[in-house]
């Protein structure tokens, strides 16, 4: 029982496969399954787009978080006086005048002193007639 040629094979395949009697064509079932597949694809696509959109919206907020409360810089105490000279370089200036602005800011103390021309070194005058004197 050997296959002599391709023609014989073709005829014998016809004989074997044509003997099969398929059940009636499941038109409605195939339609229903196809619609289910389409619905599932739509849901998947919509969900994917929603996730992508949410990611795009949330991305800036995630990347730019507000500064933490404990990270505020320590401010020094600043005092501004009028018509006074510094004690830098060992030179005692005239008596100090009432303060214009003064107040602590929770950090190390500092003093801002303003003076008239001739009362401070030239370099300090050139820098705006004032100088910082750190304690």
């Amino acid at each position: 029982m050997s296959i002599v040629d391709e023609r014989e094979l073709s005829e014998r395949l016809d004989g074997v496969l044509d003997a099969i009697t398929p059940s009636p064509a499941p038109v409605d079932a195939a339609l229903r399954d196809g619609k289910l597949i389409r619905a599932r694809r739509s849901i998947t696509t919509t969900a994917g787009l929603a996730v992508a959109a949410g990611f795009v919206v949330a991305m800036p907020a995630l990347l730019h978080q507000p500064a933490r409360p404990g990270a505020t810089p320590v401010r020094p105490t600043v005092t501004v006086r009028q018509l006074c000279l510094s004690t830098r370089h060992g030179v005692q200036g005239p008596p100090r005048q009432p303060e214009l602005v003064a107040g602590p800011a929770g950090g190390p103390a500092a003093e801002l002193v303003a003076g008239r021309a001739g009362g401070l070194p030239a370099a300090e005058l050139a820098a705006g007639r004032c100088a910082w004197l750190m304690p």
Partner: protein
Amino acid sequence: MDSRTDAAFAEFVRGRWSTLVRLGYGLTGDQRLAENLVRAALAKAYASWPRVIRAGGPDVYVRRIILNASHGRFLRRRARTPETCGQDDRSALMTALLRLPAGQRSVVLLRYWMDMTEAEVAEALGCSVGSVKSQASRALAKLRVSEDLLGEILL
């Protein structure tokens, strides 16, 4: 989709169902499995019907789904299990066919049962014409040997 599409699909299913089930049977050796395979392929075709029509027609698309599915591990194993063949499948040819590798079996069915040209088979399977020729040649050689052996056993 509109009712016109549904009507075209229904007409396609009614017209091709028997042929596709027979192809599935040749690939799997199991009629129930073949019917499920074809039904799933048809549902996939319906889900992408406009694209399927644009891509050259549902025949090519559905046939390719069936062939790809039959090359899957599960179906390949099922097709090679002799117990899945019923009494009607005891013909020596069918038994020998199911012993072929899935690729060779596909070539045999498309080339010698569906009467497709080598170029058409190559397109359907996504391979070269040379590959189709060599697979067909190897399949024929194996079928000859298998049938000789089976013939001796059955007689």
